[in-house]
Every structure is written in structure tokens, then in C-alpha cells.
């Protein structure tokens, strides 16, 4: 295939806009047409929403479409599908699976969730106990178990699921990866109210859930390798975004500082400046990472961005609550709701403070990520461990 230039891509964008004027085309129709034109994720293959172009060209396409007032696919609402399910399906799926799932995923017609964590297996994800047993006649898989902290399970149509298919093997070897229909009989989603009062995540009970073998992703027993692709994508999906100077969590604090001189104290000033500087440095580090990726030289900085964002979000939102004085004693809304996504900008300081606590837990805790940096980036020796060669069924629980 000949290399695709930015110019050719922009011509395609203009053709798309001419054939489907955003002002008069229904939203979903426009998004489908964009996918079919290969302008959804340009680095994906032709026929699957892309054109096999360099990933770095996506930004220009997005900017051109945004300028023309085209609708986007609400990436915040479908983040798990875009950031985790899609790259895994692309890497391990059959042609049939790719064609069945990627288009409605990208368009946002089908929301995805991630059925990985279990009450007994979080950081030690490979210890999971949800069973998938193959039915001899049909070849279908019957799944039983419980998942937990599942974001968006209440809006999801599909799930990426890992389950144990051979308890006699060591824990990393007996796992298989499935695409699970959230509407299948036996899938029960119960809201799990969280620290903020609302229920972004859920418990998911799986009782005799039938999954056809055609919805298995990768080989039987290969689930851990497939899951690692998902997890790697989960962690890098953060660093690639471009934010403006004073974007993110520091924005509302800086605005409050400027607009409300009565709140200022010298001690808070020092902390604000320290955090402002750190937020700016984090922005530059993310920008540097983006430039490295565009130049095709991915650096190890990527593994660090999530750690930095988690720490800063927590410290900055903590400062914001204090800065607000009496107002900081109040909370905007404790109503138990089941939102479609995280809402850091639409809510007030108390919410930001509480929700940011999850940033160092979701998608791998900060402790686990520090281990990863220490071992894979710095090359420090791994923890001594005795669970690698034991059969899963013989592990202590």
C-alpha cells in the first residue's frame, strides 16, 4: 500500500463532508459514513474504519472535522471500547469478529465494559476465579462467577471478559478471553454505589451465561497474553492526549484564585504555585511523549503519566476544597445516580476531590504501576514470588 499523506487524508475529509453535510445528516449516519471512509482511526486497516495511515495523522483529521462542526463519537462515554476492547479485537480477533464489532463500537451504538476484576482478584488479576466450562455438544462456553467494580456495565452492550478455563494449570496459563453479550440470560448487573454517592461502576453476576465459541478472542488458554494487550492499551490511552496550558484539574483552582481574592492566604499561595508548576511540567511531559510517539520513538515516559496524573489530580482537588473555605464544607449532590461516565468538569470541588481518589486505583493501582516502572523501565529485580509455577487451584486464597 502506498503511504498516505496528510493532504490525501484531508481531501477524503472534504469529500466526506460534501457527501454528508453535518448540519443535515443525522448523527449516527454521519459517524457510520466517517467510519466507512476510513477516517475513524486512520491507523486501522482499510475496511475497519482506517486507511493504514500513520497514527500521527489522526489529529489533523479530527481538527478538520471539528472545525466543520461534525459530531464526534463521544469518546468519554465509550472510552473502554475505544481504548481497550478495540485494540485487543484488532490484535487477536478473527476477520469476522473485527467486522462484526468494530464499527458499532466506534460509532458508539454499542458501549463496551471490562469484566476483569473480581472480589478476590484485583491487582493480582491473573488469580481470577470466574469459570468458563466448554459444553461438549454445542461447543459453547458456560460461564459462572462474579465480577466487580465494572464501570459502565449498566450501559454496556458487550464486555471483554476473562475467565478460568483450566484450574489445574498455573494461574497465568489457564485463562481464556471472551467477548460477552451483556444482554445474555444469566448476566445480572447491580449498581455499586461509590464514594461520590453515585454508581459509575457495578457488580456483575454471571450465572450459567452461554457464550458461543465464535465469541472467544484468541486461543483457549491464551487469555493472559490477550489481556496484557488490553492492559497495556489501558495505561497508554492516558498520555496521548493534548491538553492546553492550565488545562485539567488546575483550571478551576486557578480560576477561583483569580476571581476570589478573599480566599487567598500565603500558605495556600505557595501550594497553588507548586502544583501549578507541577501540572505544567506534567503537561509538557505528556506533550513530549506525544511527540516521541509521532516521531515513532515511543519512550518509557508513557508508563509514568498515569502515576503523575493520579497524584496531581488528588493533590490539586484537595487544595481546591481547602481554598473554598466554608463552601468546601458543602457537597453539590449526593443523589444516587448511574451516570454514563466520569464528570470532572461538570461537578464541584468536593466531587472532584472524592472522584480523584479512584485515579490511583482504577486501571492498575499506583503501587502496581511503580513496580512496573521499577522493573521494566529501571530494570530493578522483581519481587521474590512463589505463585508462578503452582496450579491455580492450589493457591492460597
Amino acid at each position, binding site marked *: 500500500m502506498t503511504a498516505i499523506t496528510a493532504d490525501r487524508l484531508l481531501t477524503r475529509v472534504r469529500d466526506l463532508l460534501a457527501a454528508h453535510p453535518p448540519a443535515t445528516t443525522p448523527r449516527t449516519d454521519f459517524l457510520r459514513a466517517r467510519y466507512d471512509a476510513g477516517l475513524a482511526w486512520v491507523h486501522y486497516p482499510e475496511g475497519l474504519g482506517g486507511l493504514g495511515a500513520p497514527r500521527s495523522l489522526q489529529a489533523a483529521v479530527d481538527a478538520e472535522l471539528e472545525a466543520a462542526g461534525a459530531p464526534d463519537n463521544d469518546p468519554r462515554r465509550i472510552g473502554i471500547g475505544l481504548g481497550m476492547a478495540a485494540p485487543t479485537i484488532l490484535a487477536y480477533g478473527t476477520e469476522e469478529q473485527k467486522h462484526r464489532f468494530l464499527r458499532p463500537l466506534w460509532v458508539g451504538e454499542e458501549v463496551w465494559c471490562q469484566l476483569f476484576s473480581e472480589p478476590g482478584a484485583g491487582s493480582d488479576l491473573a488469580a481470577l476465579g470466574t469459570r468458563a466450562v466448554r459444553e461438549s455438544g454445542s461447543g459453547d462456553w458456560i460461564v459462572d462467577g462474579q465480577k466487580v467494580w465494572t464501570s459502565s456495565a449498566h450501559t454496556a452492550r458487550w464486555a471483554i471478559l476473562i475467565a478460568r478455563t483450566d484450574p489445574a494449570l498455573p494461574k497465568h496459563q489457564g485463562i481464556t478471553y471472551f467477548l460477552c453479550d451483556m444482554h445474555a440470560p444469566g448476566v445480572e448487573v447491580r449498581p455499586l454505589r461509590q464514594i461520590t454517592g453515585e454508581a459509575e461502576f457495578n457488580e456483575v453476576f454471571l450465572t450459567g451465561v452461554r457464550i458461543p465459541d465464535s465469541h472467544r478472542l484468541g486461543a483457549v488458554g491464551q487469555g493472559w497474553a490477550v489481556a496484557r494487550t488490553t492492559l497495556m492499551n489501558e495505561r497508554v490511552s492516558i498520555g496521548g492526549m493534548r491538553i*492546553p*496550558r*492550565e*488545562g485539567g484539574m488546575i*483550571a*478551576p483552582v*486557578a*480560576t477561583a*484564585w*483569580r*476571581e476570589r*481574592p478573599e480566599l*487567598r*492566604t*500565603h500558605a495556600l*499561595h*505557595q501550594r*497553588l*504555585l*507548586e502544583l*501549578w*508548576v*507541577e501540572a*505544567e*511540567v*506534567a503537561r*509538557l*511531559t505528556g*506533550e*513530549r511523549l506525544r*511527540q*516521541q510517539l509521532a*516521531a515513532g520513538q515511543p519512550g518509557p*515516559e508513557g508508563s*509514568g503519566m498515569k*502515576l*503523575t496524573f493520579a497524584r496531581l489530580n488528588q493533590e490539586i482537588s484537595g487544595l481546591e476544597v481547602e481554598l473554598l473555605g466554608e463552601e468546601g464544607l458543602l457537597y453539590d449532590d449526593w443523589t444516587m445516580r448511574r451516570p454514563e461516565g466520569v464528570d470532572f*468538569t*461538570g461537578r464541584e470541588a468536593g466531587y472532584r476531590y472524592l472522584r480523584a481518589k479512584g485515579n490511583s486505583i482504577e486501571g492498575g493501582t499506583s*503501587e502496581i504501576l*511503580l*513496580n512496573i*516502572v*521499577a*522493573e521494566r*523501565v*529501571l*530494570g*530493578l*529485580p*522483581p*519481587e*521474590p514470588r512463589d505463585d508462578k509455577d503452582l496450579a491455580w487451584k492450589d493457591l492460597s486464597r
Partner: protein
Amino acid sequence: MTAPTTPVAPAAPTDLLHSGTEEELRAAVRALLTDRCDAKTVLARIETGRPHDPALWHTLAAGIGAAGLLVPEKLGGQGASHREAAVVLEELGRSVAPVPYLTSAVLATEILLGCDTPEAAPLLRELASGSTVCVPAVPLTLAPGAPLPAPVREGGAGLLSGTVTSVADAVAADVLLVLADTGLYAVPAASARLTPQVPLDLTRPLATVTLEAAAGTRLADPGTARAAVAGALLSGAGLLASEQLGLAEWCLAETVGHVRGRHQFNRPVGSFQALKHRLARLWLDVAGARAAARAAADALATAAPDAPLTVAVAQAYCSGVAVRAAEECVQLHGGIGMTWEHPAHLYLKRAKADSLALGTASHHRGLVADFAELPAP
């Protein structure tokens, strides 16, 4: 909620990577320093009380052409930019090299470039060729944005008198740049009295400069001189971040290497999670310092309108990272880290002195407050 307001508009896209040419320059400087400026050599030199190595300086300045990076080609320089000078400083920081680069090739050079007078041109040529070392006779702690001191008076006929303390690299200088009440003067170092002080950082020696009716050549009027010095302090502070980065990178790498090899309790000490997490956090800090230092160098090179903010951010951040890296280096080396033989102390002393040089982190945070419109109560 109100939309985020950004007082200093986001800079035009900043190039935060190192180019191929910059990497070539780095390789040349690093090869030279590995060869001629290893820790043992630095330690041996500082013990003689004459830390500067004129032969090393000559190769770096003239052989590699590092002294003239900021000087335009028409004045005999390389016509390069702050980006390249920053790479040299990263390497000099990595080996705590006792050479007057920051003072002569950055601060003095920038002052002379800022004067832009016919009198300054010949001196710039000499600086660019590496044949003359010229340092500004100002305290190393003088910060951008701070009021400029004027301890030196001209008593008529270009004869200067006054005392300046903590002048870095003065003992290596051929020429001193003196900011006096009537303008900027070039004074031969031989006509000044230099009293060496005992510095915390032995690799960047300090002296008190005393002028007693010393004759100088006037290079610029007071207004031009003060603007030139202010500009040079900004560049110096921005590029110092790169020295701090190189220093921190060395400390991190050296410490990781040590804890991987050192065994206690029948395991490498680097396999203990408490240390792994500390080093992983330090690595994050160094990654941040790399981005901040590069942003400052790029902003200076492109004369970006927000360069003063970018420099203040880099200094507010990198000073602390360098000190933390050097302190962790001493601590995680245990007893060896406290010895004179191990080079860790050279890095700690340089890092701590650098944190005072050209403005402390808190001074630079104050500047951030001004530029970002986040006023004190």
C-alpha cells in the same frame, strides 16, 4: 463552571525532542568528558585547589566549538541556539565538569550579544573561539527578575572601584564583565584582586572580586547594560535547568546500578519494594525535568513570548529534582555514599549550589505567580 482562562496563551507547539544533530553534539561532548573528565579526575583536580582544567576547556570550547554555539557565524561562532547549548550543559552536569561553560559561554556571551555594540564584537569573537574566558562579575545567586545590584562605581576616566562577592569561575577568567553605575565594562582579570572563597560546590569555584581604580573598556550604556544582563540571567536560568537534568540523570542511573548489584539480606537491595518505589518516583521526576528543561531551551531558542514563564517553570521544578536525585544517590549508596572517594558528594554539592544559582525555586515560583497572574494575597 467558567471556562478555563489561560493568562499566558499556550505557546506555539514546542519541540521537546532532541534532534539528530543535537544527539551528535551530545555524543562528541560525552566522549570527550568520558575520556578526560571522569569522576576520579574531577576529584583529583578539586583537591589541588585548581579545579579548572584549561586543556579540557580548550578542546570543548575550541575543538568541539561548544563555546561559540550561541554566537552568530558572522562573529566567528556556530550560529546555533539555546537548544544545542542545553545539550552541552546536560553533559557537563552529568559529569560535574569543572569548566566555565555556564559563566563564559552562556552568561557572558549573552550579555555581550545583548549589548550589540561595536566594542562588544571583538570580545565575542574571542569567546566564540574559546581563546578567552570571560565571566560576569555578579554573584552567582543573582536571579532573573530580581533588582540588579550596582556595587561598582566609576570614578572618572573609566576607572572602576567596588567589591562583588560569590563570582563563579572568576579564577579561570581572562576578562571580567563589570556592571557599574555608568554602564558595562570589560576589565582584564589581571587588574582585579581575586580572593578565592571556600565554595560548597568545589567544581564551580567562587571568588570575591575587588576593583580599586581598575581600568576597563566601556561596552554599553547603563540602560543597555542592565537589559543585557537581565536577558542573560533569563537564558542562564533556563539553561541551568539542563545542567540540573544531566546531573539528576547521572544520580538516578548510578543509584539504580548500585542497588542492583549490592546484596543485603540475601537479595539485591534493589529488589526491596520500598527502594523500587522511591527510584520509580525519582524516575518520574527526572522525566518531568527533561520535558521542562527542553521546553525552556526551546522557548529561549525560538524567542517565544512565554519564554520567561517557561524558564521560571523549569527552574522552579528542576532545582528540586536535581537536589532530590543527589540526596537519594547518597542515601541509597549507604556508607559508601558518605565517603570522599565516591563521587556522589560532588553531585550533591553541585545540585545544592545550583539550587541557589540564578534564583531559588521559590524565587522562580514567585515569577510564575506574576506571569500566570496568580497574585499573592
